Structure formats: structure tokens, C-alpha cells
């Protein structure tokens, strides 16, 4: 019986967080600090004609001001100067601040003011005077749709079957267009860093989802060896994808610190966050579905276009997941992008999947109404028992169970089919459902375990904990397999002095780092067994490693504590104060034989005010099949978070652009509406566990993104059911229901 796995554990960093002692990047106390403040462009395209920093430089407390005219311009790193060869990584064309007079997007950083205090830097930033050779920016993707192009034609998927022909001959078909505006992550902690140099060595406290990625970025930016850069990031106040790639601020903070020989703190304002990192792109989609009268899908044609910047081709892979959700013999999907005069988009929670599944799952609902078949039944009719693209079996897929158990819990059988047919007093009631899907990824990840003779253990891995509870789950897994009580295990992350781990993204952290901890603990077990068996009278002489476990300070035969060796005694006898194992875990080749993925069914109730058309999400049931749940407490919180994000995407969130100036009009939390406490009512999770040793030895699948994927579609479908109004343009604000 597991002692920790599958049981609720409160966060090991909980006390640090509720007492204010957890330190986020910009909070480390460093002496002789200088404060940076960024100046942004006021035009969306063109070049800087002049930039006058005279008055600003004379303002009290100002140390120095950097613009494209005087900022050092490091040579581009050699390795990326070559044209990318086949399979070579794309040349890094990410935006670098203060390197050119060219304006690529409105609110682009054009100057960095350094002063003795934050107040002085902020004030002086307003005294910088800039003139431009202004050009007309193009920021409205929908009017530029005709310029859409396929970014990676060689990687575009081929059609399955003969979709065009199949659609034409389908007895029932629907076709619709769906649009999603730009959305911003808006983590609560603004992005920021404190950087300082000692000789040629850089130390930076940064908000990041991957310390090694920032290290490489800074090392190449300054042309110094990676070992000369230390990136520290013990706590991250949310990121949701916005800190996956290094943003422009760490490089200019480090540049400034090097130039003035002082530590520099640079933190985005909330407004600066809207162009200081990427965003979920503006997405236009068209879905055509064909079906037999019995509901069997005959054709899916799914087109998607998203916006990118002028200098990078970012594809959101919108149509990727939807290709493989249903058993349909004829599928075509395409992904194009449109260049716009905006900053480059980036991954935002459930990138691509949530946008693509919004379109597909709304279209499925539309098809259900065209066929007069219950929307849930339609999904069961088209259930994919094997992967529809590759034909491979799934390593596990309890989606059918999710549909049925979720429906039962929700009371779906009491749903009346017709729109506007259910009421609660004067409120219109709508019930909607949708499917969630995400990968079950694993990335190579390394850990170092130090087991001490005093019965404690230290675990280190340069992963990140942006909120899902990585500190806790890794402590839990280590305690389980080292046989220690969790209080004796200390796990550290977020520092390049620890072994390399992947960025925290794609919902693969626990599967990757957790597997490394598990395998490393087995290595420790093996080392202890070898030590024990040096003794002729070892009780473990005939044991095989797989028969052994570590428990309560002993190495013993599983479920048989009579044959055991005390670990502390064993280590002391061998003069070993500590036993160290450094291990990298890689995904197994066994995975290749299977299709892997995480699935969920999501059921939503909305109530709509018949006069004001305000939509409230009153009830959500998430039935989730994502392998083995390590810590249901934090897993449930991830599910809640996904739902809250889905509510925001469906009902409130949009980054509004004034296309005349290419300028974001609502770069703040007053006008960019994220859900607040009053928007979130009853949320319940059903964990349908899967026993899947193919994905990884512990059977872990990701879940941080999965919980969000179907929610916007389920809400839109529920709104249709409540009101009879099909809104295909997010967010579903009251004006669209009038």
C-alpha cells in the first residue's frame, strides 16, 4: 500500500507562502541596487527618428539611460548565424530590446532608465522624448486573412482519406466559423529580475518556467560560457506559459548591471506585461463536419489561422489535437498564420488545444442539433477506441468512463434537448458538454538524490514550480520510494546549480521529474543492496532489486519486514555519511508502440439572466482520466484552475486592440477581465484513474492543461442550450446575446 501516493498532502511550501516568507524573483534583498524602468513606444510601426534623453538624464537620482543608440549590441551567437539545416532548431529571432531603431509593435521597449529608486526611475521615464517616422500598422488579422500562409509546409499533416469528397456526399453537414481574440496570461506576479555580475559571472534571480533556458539565452546574449551564468527562481507567482521562453527583460537587466557595475532590478508594470511576453494568438477557424443520419462522422475539415509577429512565425497548432479526437475516416486540417505588427504570441495554458477544441466541440454540438441526437450520445457514437490517425492502441484511455460517470454525476439524463427549454425561476438554464484532451508527455529530466546516514534525504532538480505543487509532489514521490517520512525529505528546484530539468510546461513536469526521482531511488536501492551483500550473512543475498523496497529506514524484501537491513547502520558501517545518485530519466521506447494521451469529459450548467443576458457558470463537473493521481489535493486545484481559465476564455477575456494605432487598449486588470471569486461557483472533480505503466513507471499523465481544454466549448454549448443563441466569437459577453 502506498503511504503517500494518491493521498492528500498539503503543500510543503504552504507555510512559506501564507507567511509571506516565500521569495519571488524581484524580492531578494541585494545591496547597492539600481532600479530600472522601461519606456515603451507610442506607435505601432516605423522607426525612431529621435530619442531625447537629456531632460530625463538630469532628473534627480538617474544613473544612466539606455536606448538603441547607446545600448551594447552583442554579436548574434555564432551557432545561430548559420541557416538552419534540416531538423536544426530555428534560428532565434525572438525580440531583443534596444537593438534597433525599428518599431515592430506598439508598446515596444525603446529605453531603459536606471535610477537610485523606483520612484525616480519611473518619473524620469516620462521625460524621455521620442519622435518617429510612423507607418500604418496592420494588426487586425481578420482583415488580413488572405495573406495567411502555412509556416512549415513540410511538417503539415496530410489529409486522412478523402475529406472533400466525403463531406460532399454526407447526408448531414454543418459548417461554421469560430473566432477567439488575443488573450494574455496575466499571472499575478509581474515578470521581473535582479541581475548582478561578479567578474565575468552573472547571477540573476528571474521569474521563469525554466532556469536552464534563461541561462542559455543569457550566455549566448553575452557570448560567455553557460557555466558563468547562474539563474535562480525558487518561487514563481504564476506564469501559464508566459515565462517559457526568455522574455526581453532579463537580457537588458543583465546588460544594465554589467554597464553600471551594480545589481539591477527590473520589473514589468502590469501594462508592460501585455507586450513584454507572448500571448494566446487571435485565432480564426472554420470547421465543416459531415455525418450519416445515425451520427457517424464521415468527414472533418478544420482550418485554422492565427496571428504572429512580423519577425517570427508562431504557429499555435490549433488543429493538432482535434484531428485525433473522433473516429472519422476522412479528415483534413490546416494551420496557417498571418503576420501582424504585434509582438510574437507564445504558449498560453493548453496552447492550440483549447482553441481548436473550442471550434471542434462547438461544431459537434451544432451537428448534434442538426441530427437531433443528444450531444453526449454523438460523442459516444464517434468514440475512438484506437488512435484514428496512426491506428495505434492507446496506452490507456478511460474517456468513455469519464463521459458516463460525469453524465451520471451531473444528471445529464434529465436534460431537455430543445434550447430554451429549462428554467430556474426566470433564469434560463443551459447544460453543455465537451471533451478535453491533452498529451501524456514525458521529457528527459535529471535529479540528484543525496541519502544521508542520519535518515534524511535531499533531492535537487532544476525544474520549476509555477503553482501546480511541484515542490509537494516531488517530495511525496521521493518519500514514497526512499521509504522516509516526508518531513525527512527536502526538495529544491529552480536553480541552475541543480541537475538539468525541462521547462515547466506541457503538463509534463511530474511525469518527467517524478520518473527521474523514482528511478534514482531505485538506483539508491541497488547501491544499498550491493553494500549489504558484501556481507556474507546478508539477509538479502538471494533478493533481486525488484523484490526490494526501502521503508522506515530499512532496505527490505517487499511486504516482508523480517528480512531487512537497517540503512543508517549499513551506511555507517561503510563509512558513508551520504549516498549520492545523479540520474537522468528518459521516456521509454515502449511508448512508441502506443498512442498516449490524457482525456476528460466536462459538463457545465449556465444560468442566463433573460433581460441582462449575463451568463453565470453555476456548476461544473470534470471527469478526468489522466493516469495515476499522485496528490489529489493539488490535482483538484489544477482542475479548478483549468475551469476558471475556461470560464475566463468563454465569457470575459479579450485583449482589445485599436487597429488604427495597433495599440492594446486594455493592458490592465480593470479592463482585461479575468474571473474573480464571484464568477466561480460549484466545481467538482471525478478522477477516473488509469493504470498505465506504458507512459512511465509511475503511470503519471499531465493534467494542468487538460482541465481547461473542453471548458470554453462546454460553456458556449450550454449558453446555446439556455438561450438558443449560438455564439461563435469569444468571449460570450452579454451584448452578443441581446
Amino acid at each position, binding site marked *: 500500500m502506498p503511504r503517500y501516493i494518491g493521498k*492528500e*498532502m*498539503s*503543500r510543503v511550501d*504552504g*507555510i*512559506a507562502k*501564507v*507567511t*509571506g*516568507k*516565500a*521569495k*519571488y524573483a524581484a*524580492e531578494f534583498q541585494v545591496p*547597492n541596487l539600481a532600479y530600472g524602468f522601461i519606456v515603451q513606444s507610442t506607435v505601432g510601426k516605423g522607426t525612431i527618428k529621435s530619442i531625447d534623453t537629456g531632460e530625463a538624464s538630469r532628473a*534627480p*537620482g538617474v544613473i544612466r539611460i539606455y536606448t538603441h543608440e547607446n545600448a551594447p549590441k552583442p554579436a548574434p551567437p555564432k551557432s545561430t548565424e548559420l541557416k538552419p539545416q534540416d531538423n536544426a532548431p530555428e534560428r532565434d529571432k525572438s525580440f531583443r530590446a534596444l537593438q534597433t531603431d525599428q518599431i515592430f509593435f506598439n508598446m515596444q521597449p525603446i529605453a531603459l532608465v536606471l535610477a*537610485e*529608486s*523606483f*520612484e*525616480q526611475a519611473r*518619473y524620469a521615464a516620462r521625460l524621455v522624448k521620442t519622435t518617429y517616422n510612423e507607418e500604418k500598422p496592420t494588426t487586425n488579422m481578420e482583415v488580413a486573412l488572405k495573406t495567411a500562409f502555412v509556416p512549415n509546409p513540410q511538417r503539415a499533416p496530410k489529409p486522412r*482519406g478523402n475529406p472533400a469528397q466525403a463531406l460532399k456526399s454526407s447526408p448531414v453537414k454543418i459548417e461554421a466559423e469560430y473566432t477567439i481574440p488575443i488573450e494574455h496570461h496575466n*499571472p*499575478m506576479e509581474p515578470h521581473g529580475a535582479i541581475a*548582478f555580475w561578479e*567578474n565575468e*559571472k552573472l*547571477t540573476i534571480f528571474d521569474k521563469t518556467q525554466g532556469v536552464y533556458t534563461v541561462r542559455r539565452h543569457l550566455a549566448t546574449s553575452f557570448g560567455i560560457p553557460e557555466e558563468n551564468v547562474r539563474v*535562480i527562481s525558487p518561487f514563481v*507567482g*504564476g506564469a501559464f506559459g508566459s515565462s517559457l521562453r526568455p522574455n526581453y527583460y532579463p537580457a537588458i537587466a543583465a546588460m544594465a548591471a554589467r554597464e553600471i*557595475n*551594480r545589481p539591477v532590478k527590473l520589473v514589468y508594470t*502590469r501594462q508592460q506585461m501585455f507586450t513584454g511576453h507572448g500571448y494566446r494568438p487571435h485565432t480564426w477557424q472554420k470547421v465543416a463536419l459531415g455525418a450519416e443520419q445515425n451520427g457517424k462522422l464521415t468527414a472533418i475539415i478544420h482550418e485554422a489561422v492565427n496571428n504572429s509577429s512580423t519577425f517570427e512565425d508562431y504557429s499555435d497548432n490549433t488543429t493538432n489535437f482535434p484531428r485525433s479526437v473522433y473516429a472519422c*475516416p476522412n479528415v483534413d486540417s490546416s494551420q496557417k498564420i498571418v503576420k501582424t505588427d504585434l509582438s510574437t504570441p507564445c504558449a498560453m495554458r493548453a496552447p492550440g488545444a483549447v482553441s481548436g477544441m473550442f471550434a471542434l466541440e462547438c461544431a459537434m454540438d451544432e451537428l448534434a442539433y442538426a441530427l437531433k441526437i443528444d450531444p453526449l450520445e454523438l460523442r459516444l457514437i464517434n468514440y475512438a477506441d*484506437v488512435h484514428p490517425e496512426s*491506428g495505434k492502441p492507446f496506452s490507456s484511455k478511460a474517456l468513455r468512463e469519464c463521459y458516463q*460517470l460525469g453524465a451520471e454525476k451531473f444528471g445529464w439524463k434529465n436534460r431537455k434537448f430543445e434550447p430554451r427549454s429549462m428554467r430556474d425561476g426566470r433564469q434560463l438554464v443551459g447544460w453543455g458538454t465537451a471533451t478535453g484532451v491533452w498529451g501524456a508527455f514525458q521529457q528527459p529530466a535529471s535529479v540528484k538524490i543525496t541519502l544521508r546516514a542520519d535518515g534524511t534525504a535531499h533531492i535537487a532538480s532544476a525544474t520549476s514550480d509555477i*503553482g*501546480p*505543487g511541484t515542490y509537494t509532489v516531488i517530495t511525496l514521490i521521493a518519500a514514497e520510494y526512499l521509504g522516509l517520512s516526508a*518531513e525527512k525529505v*527536502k526538495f529544491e528546484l529552480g536553480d541552475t546549480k541543480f541537475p538539468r530539468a525541462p521547462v515547466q510546461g506541457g503538463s509534463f513536469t511530474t511525469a518527467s521529474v517524478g520518473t527521474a526521482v523514482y528511478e534514482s531511488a531505485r538506483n539508491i536501492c541497488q547501491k544499498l543492496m550491493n553494500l549489504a551483500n558484501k556481507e556474507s550473512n546478508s539477509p538479502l543475498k538471494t533478493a533481486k532489486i525488484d523484490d526490494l523496497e526501502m521503508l522506515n529506514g530499512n532496505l527490505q524484501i517487499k511486504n516482508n519486514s523480517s528480512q531487512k537491513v537497517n540503512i543508517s547502520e549499513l551506511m555507517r558501517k561503510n563509512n558513508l555519511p551520504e549516498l549520492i545518485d545523479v540520474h537522468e530519466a528518459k521516456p521509454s521506447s515502449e511508448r512508441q508502440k502506443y498512442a498516449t494521451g490524457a482525456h476528460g469529459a466536462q459538463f457545465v450548467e449556465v444560468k442566463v439572466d433573460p433581460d441582462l443576458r449575463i451568463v453565470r457558470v453555476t456548476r461544473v463537473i470534470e471527469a478526468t482520466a489522466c493516469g495515476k493521481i499522485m496528490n489529489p489535493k493539488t490535482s*483538484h*486545484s489544477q482542475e*479548478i*484552475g*483549468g475551469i476558471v481559465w475556461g470560464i475566463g476564455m468563454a465569457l470575459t477575456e479579450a485583449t482589445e486592440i485599436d487597429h488604427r494605432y495597433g495599440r492594446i487598449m486594455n493592458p*490592465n*486588470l480593470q479592463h482585461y477581465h*479575468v474571473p474573480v*471569486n464571484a464568477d*466561480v461557483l460549484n*466545481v*467538482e*472533480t471525478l*478522477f477516473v484513474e488509469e493504470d498505465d505503466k506504458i507512459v512511465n513507471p509511475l503511470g503519471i499523465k499531465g493534467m494542468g492543461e487538460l482541465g481547461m481544454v473542453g471548458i470554453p466549448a462546454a460553456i458556449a454549448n450550454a449558453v446555446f442550450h439556455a438561450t438558443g443563441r449560438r455564439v461563435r466569437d469569444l468571449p460570450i459577453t452579454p451584448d452578443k446575446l441581446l
Partner: protein
Amino acid sequence: METELDYELHPELNTALSEDEKELLSQIPELTELGEGRRKFLGQVFASGLGVFALQLLAQEEILASMKASEDAVFALEALEENLVAVKLKINGLEKTLNLDSRVSLLDALRERLALTGTKKGCDQGQCGACTVIVNGRRVLSCLTLTATCEGKEITTVEGLARGEELHPMQAAFIKHDGFQCGYCTPGQLCSAVALLQEAKNGEASHATVSFQTNARNLKLSDEEIRERMSGNICRCGAYPGIVAAIQEVHKGKETAQTWRFVSNEEIAALNLEEKTDEIV
């Protein structure tokens, strides 16, 4: 001279719990009795949460604090501090006299002048609630409060909620109900929640208050009331249900029903899913 940031070199920081920490752990109040069908697991709260994290970070900062300015460091030529205003206030029970730039918000005074970084900057314009502190018993957005206006006032930040080493019941309840994920909005949520309890005691109304007819004190707030009253504190991780559950537990001593569960093997077996042999498409 390089600053050695390697706190693994400080073996005393790697030891298990100290006696004080064990004591702290034992003092975390369990708030209610558990009923049948309620939360089965209280969950383990680890003192290592405070002990190890705090000590590590403290150690790093102690090392950083000794870092000398470079000989080539560039400083501003003119006034390092301007428009100085003297303010005397009480922060977490301690008298402080500050002499600072009149533009300094209470938030920046706490974070940048007093090293009280528990109070968070989320938007710096009064829209997110992360900077909420308690001033003279009322919750206040410290980013919209100039320090110069705080003369003689009593300020409580998240660092001042615990009584000595004993967590405030609200802090313990937030841990128990997982009322946070990344933790960045948490100090503001906690200050807001603690002040909210006082508002309920005072009988103060909110937008969600059903009746304004009575002048009742000691209001018993519904979940709807708490959601409304906590809507000035944004949590992007979406930990709202846990926050409401935590506040209700402290407010009413009411245990909130658990809202997740594992589906049992029996339930799955009872579904009797037909085995289909789908063609490979």
C-alpha cells in the same frame, strides 16, 4: 571577491526540524471535527515548509547582504532621495520612523524600504488586490496608499498575521483547503479575509447583502457573500473555491464538503461498457 551563493555549504541549514519548528507544527490548529463523508484526510502540513524554505532564503540573503559594491559602480550624481517626508507608523506591532520620498506608496515602502516583501505588487494600480494590507483594522490597497498618509497608523501585513510562531487560523485554513497555488496573491487574500471577518462582526453590508433593514452585528455570511466580498482579490490560479472554504471554516467553523473523489473500480465495472472492436480507420 565572489559571493558564494551555495547554501549547501551551510550544513546547519540542511538539518531536519528544529525543536521550535516541531513546536510550530504541533501548534497548527485543527479547526473542526470531521464528520462522516467529509474530508477524509486533513493532509499533512509540513513544518519544513517554513523551516527549510525560510532558512534557505535567509541564508542566501545573508550572503548577498555582505556583497560589496564594485569599485567601478556607477551612482547617480544628484540627490539620492528627494522630497523627504518623515512618517511614524506602527508595522506589525513595531514602531517605525521613516524618512522617505513623498511619492513612495505604502506598498513600495514595505517591499523596497523595509524588506517586508510578503506584501505583493500585482498591478500597482488598485485592480488586483495582491497588495492588500490591514490599516487600523480595515483592508486597504497599499499600492494606492501613499506612505506619507499613514502617520500614526497601525499596519498589519501578512508577516504580522501569525501570533509569534503560531499561524493565524486563516493561514492554517488556507493551507488545509489549498486556497492558493502559486502563492503570489495569497498575502493579499489573507489580509482581505482576516479584515472581512471583522466587517462581518461589525455588520457591514456588501453588494450581495440580501437585506439592509436590520442593523445586525455578527453577520453569518453565505458563500455568495464571501465570494462577493473577496472579489477584489484576483487569483489567476483560480483557487477561489478553496479560499471560500477556508474563510467559511474560520468564520462559521463550518466544514466544507469535499468536492473531488476517486471513481471506484466497482463503479467502473458497473458501467458495463461494451467491448467494441472498432475498425482501424
